[in-house]
């Protein structure tokens, strides 16, 4: 097991958002986490990456308890969280953003091979490497956000709402790139409101509603299930 979440309770001050959540990601898997607006998906990701502390529960990564580890250590251990809304450094160039992605490891390692690998995955970014990140198109910003995440060579890549606001063709491209990244050995946790997209491009899926886990299973089975079809796919 790569990532294991056990009985997690979390929230903002007195407002509890997550209730006894359990979730697992195996090595080299693509796992989908779906649910409607306000279900608590982004909150869970903030807890995993250390931006928020949970009330209760445990997070294990490669057998190690990382429940109250600060974000900078989490990154070093190999979890990268590409946040909702891209969140690039707008006044920095594309390349500076990518270099920032390797912030935790630049001292011990030459990052040029990483940079070359990322540019090979996203040739568009190479063309725009000297452009300010704030002036990129939505699709390019999402590419840059994913690429920045890859710069720290993660074992687990978590992407929040990748498809939001992007044209279908661009989303298709990004999905292909995610599969390529996954085939090179990186596990991916794909967090989406677009249930169809997430479940048809993952191995395993979890469904949350108002902070509770309501369903889980192999993604194909979830896609076929009556409840999912009715509640999320409008069929």
């Amino acid at each position: 097991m790569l990532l294991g979440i056990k009985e997690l309770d979390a929230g903002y001050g007195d407002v509890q958002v997550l209730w006894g959540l359990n979730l697992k990601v195996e090595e080299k898997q693509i796992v989908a986490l779906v649910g409607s607006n306000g279900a608590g998906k982004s909150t869970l990701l903030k807890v995993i990456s250390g931006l928020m502390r949970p009330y209760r529960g445990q997070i294990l990564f490669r057998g190690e308890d990382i429940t109250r580890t600060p974000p900078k250590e989490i990154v070093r251990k190999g979890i990268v969280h590409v946040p909702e809304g891209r969140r690039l450094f707008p006044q920095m160039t594309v390349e500076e953003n990518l270099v920032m992605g390797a912030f935790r490891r630049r001292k011990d390692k030459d990052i040029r091979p990483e940079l070359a690998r990322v540019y090979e995955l996203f040739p568009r970014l190479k063309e725009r490497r000297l452009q300010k990140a704030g002036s990129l198109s939505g699709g390019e910003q999402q590419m840059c956000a994913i690429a920045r995440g890859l710069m720290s060579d993660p074992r687990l890549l978590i992407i929040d709402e990748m498809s939001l606001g992007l044209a279908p063709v661009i989303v298709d491209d990004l999905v292909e790139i995610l599969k390529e990244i996954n085939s090179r050995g990186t596990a991916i946790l794909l967090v989406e409101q677009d249930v169809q997209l997430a479940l048809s491009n993952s191995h395993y899926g979890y469904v949350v509603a108002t902070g509770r886990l309501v369903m889980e299973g192999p993604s194909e089975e979830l896609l076929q299930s009556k409840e999912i079809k009715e509640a999320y796919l409008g069929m």
Partner: protein
Amino acid sequence: MLAQIVINGILKGGLYALMAMGMSLIWGVMDIINIAHGSFIMLGAFTTYWLFTLLGIDPFVSLIFSISILFVIGYGIQKYLINLIIRASAFITLILAFGIEIFINNAALVAWTADVRKVKVAYGASNFSLGDWVTIPTVRLLAFMLVIVIGTIFFFILNRTDLGRSIRSTAQDLDAAQLVGVDVARTYALTFGLGVGAAGAAGTLWSILFPISPMMGGILTLKSFVVVIIGGLGSMLGPILGGLTLGVAEAMGSTWFGSTYENLISFTILVLVLILRPKGILGGAD
């Protein structure tokens, strides 16, 4: 005549720029309006005064000490005080900075009395002429050149070092900076240290050119504030442009209306800028 006034204004404006650089950095990165900024300038000035008076250390040499001492003070204040409440509203940090200001000023009053003092260096009165019209006091030119050197170092730190990258990323997106692994608490402490260290440098240069006293800080905070507003937040060009503007405007105003109006001029400019260009002359970065 006009050339002389403009040159006087530029020389003083350089010092204003240095004063504002520290305030602008702290404001832009952490959203703290550091009311105590002028008090740190005062501490820098007194560091130089005492090193000169007691140990005979040349004021220009004492820059190294005032910058280092104030850097450490700033780092400590952020790490052990402001970081504890940084998630609270901007109003709370404002109150805390206000408290720090009152504390520093009163401690300085108790320690050094309200006397106005002067650093009297032997070369203080020397000057040289350019053509028939312009006379330049040597210390002022020297101070101006040091402002350029310190500004360049500042620019280098912000744009070419890991610390600078941490600072800029934190300023641009706090969460994203944490997610790539920047230690935000440490970055904040170093940022405050840098800003206050720059105030220390400004204090040293101020003490060479003007009389000093424990209560000098208030008006300097206000002038730094005016300069930051004139230039706008978000780049180093802002304080430089704002400082030179204020310096020249004050020099012209006090020549034409008399030096009692000097402070009125800065606040007139402040009001005008707020009405006409609320994001500063440069228009702000966002």
